[in-house]
């Protein structure tokens, strides 16, 4: 199952957790890293080809399917795909309406994109862990991590996008002054200017931490849940090499965990969407 690393338990797990990284080697040439150490050595200016490939493929799938439905959408009776798409759209729309009370044409499509995209990426976790990497190996690709949301880059990337939007709307709605006041004039409030200045550092510290913690918690929550799920699938997959009894036990466990994981897959996508809506609502409203 592993290739460059020895066929050990540790090697197997490590291999499964290694992204297909493209970047600059130590000798100055550009190429794909052949080991975890090489990938690490590439530093920031490297890119995970597998994460990018699968996330963009799934994002494109989302856009393609929903665009097809959107083209067919009409006043008449919907059927088939359109029915399903409308159901998803209405579900997201209801959620946005219930948590977001301002006028903004971006929030609902943003929520829909995040929900469906994250859901699709999470769902890759339900594909047995060895299938796609083995196929990739047959095609000569050494590493293949198929669940983009188990790559912190993917979750941080989305959270970063949400964070930038939060900052943008905070400043747009409240003005730079209003936003700065929000960061420095609470939670400790005072009437006199001297006290205000005195409270400023503490306020700023608390508010800044809470501001920064939003994208971090948003991305780490998704990453942590999916990474843990993936890890358990990998550990269960190890059972398959331990004889007939363990293989049967592994099969049952994998099935059971997959069924349970469906819940996590859906729930995490939903939480990611809902929190995004909530953060944008907070950015729009005055405190």
């Amino acid at each position: 199952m592993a290739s460059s690393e020895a066929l050990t338990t540790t090697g197997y797990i490590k291999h499964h957790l290694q992204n297909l990284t493209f970047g600059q080697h130590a000798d100055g040439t550009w190429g794909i890293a052949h080991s975890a150490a090489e990938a690490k050595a590439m530093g920031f200016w490297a890119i995970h080809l597998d994460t990018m490939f699968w996330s963009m493929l799934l994002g494109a799938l989302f856009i393609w399917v929903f665009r097809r439905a959107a083209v067919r959408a009409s006043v008449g009776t919907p059927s088939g795909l359109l029915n399903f798409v409308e159901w998803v759209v209405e579900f997201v729309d209801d959620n946005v309406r219930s948590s977001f009370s301002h006028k903004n044409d971006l929030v609902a499509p943003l929520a829909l994109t995040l929900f469906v995209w994250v859901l699709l990426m999470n769902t890759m976790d339900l594909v047995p862990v060895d299938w796609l990497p083995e196929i990739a190996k047959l095609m000569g690709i050494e590493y293949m991590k198929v669940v983009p949301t188990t790559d912190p880059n993917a979750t941080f990337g989305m959270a970063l996008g949400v964070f930038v939007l939060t900052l943008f709307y905070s400043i747009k709605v409240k003005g730079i002054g209003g936003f700065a006041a929000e960061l420095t004039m609470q939670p400790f409030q005072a009437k006199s200017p001297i006290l205000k200045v005195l409270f400023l550092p503490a306020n700023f510290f608390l508010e800044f931490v809470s501001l920064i913690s939003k994208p971090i918690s948003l991305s780490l929550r998704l990453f942590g849940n999916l990474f843990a799920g993936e890890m358990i699938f990998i550990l269960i997959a190890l059972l398959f090499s331990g004889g007939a009894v363990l293989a049967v036990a592994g099969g049952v466990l994998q099935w059971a965990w997959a069924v349970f994981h469906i819940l996590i897959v859906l729930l995490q996508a939903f939480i990611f969407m809902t929190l995004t809506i909530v953060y944008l609502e907070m950015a729009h409203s005055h405190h």
Partner: protein
Amino acid sequence: MNINLTLIGQSVAFVVFVWFCMKLVWPPIVTALNDRKTKIADGLAAAEEGQQAKAKAQEHAQQVTGEAKEQAQEIIRRAEKREAEMVEEAKGSARTEGDRILNAARGEIDKEANMAREALRTQVAALAVTGASKILSREVDADAHAKMLDELITEL
């Protein structure tokens, strides 16, 4: 598990997908949904209106039928009354006519009887005169006893 350029790549992909969704996916679907909602609401309102109109029409029809029935009853009632009247009238006129005919006939009979009586009286007078003249021959002079004979006739 390293944080690297993938982060930026994912952010860019995220922005692109959200933009696509915002421009190409969300508006047509939501527009269609809203339009359909409006259409359904209109349809329901129209159905409601139609039902109301139907109820109204039924009420009107019932009213008209009721009136027509009443009128028919009235006409029948009048006709029956008229029939009875006509029968009464006919009976009355028939009775009058009958009476008239009866009276006329009676008058005729009286007249005939009077005439017959008159003729009989004249004949009896003549017979009496003849008989008497035959019996008395001489003693009775027709002219002299004319007065007496007339009295006799009236007495008959």
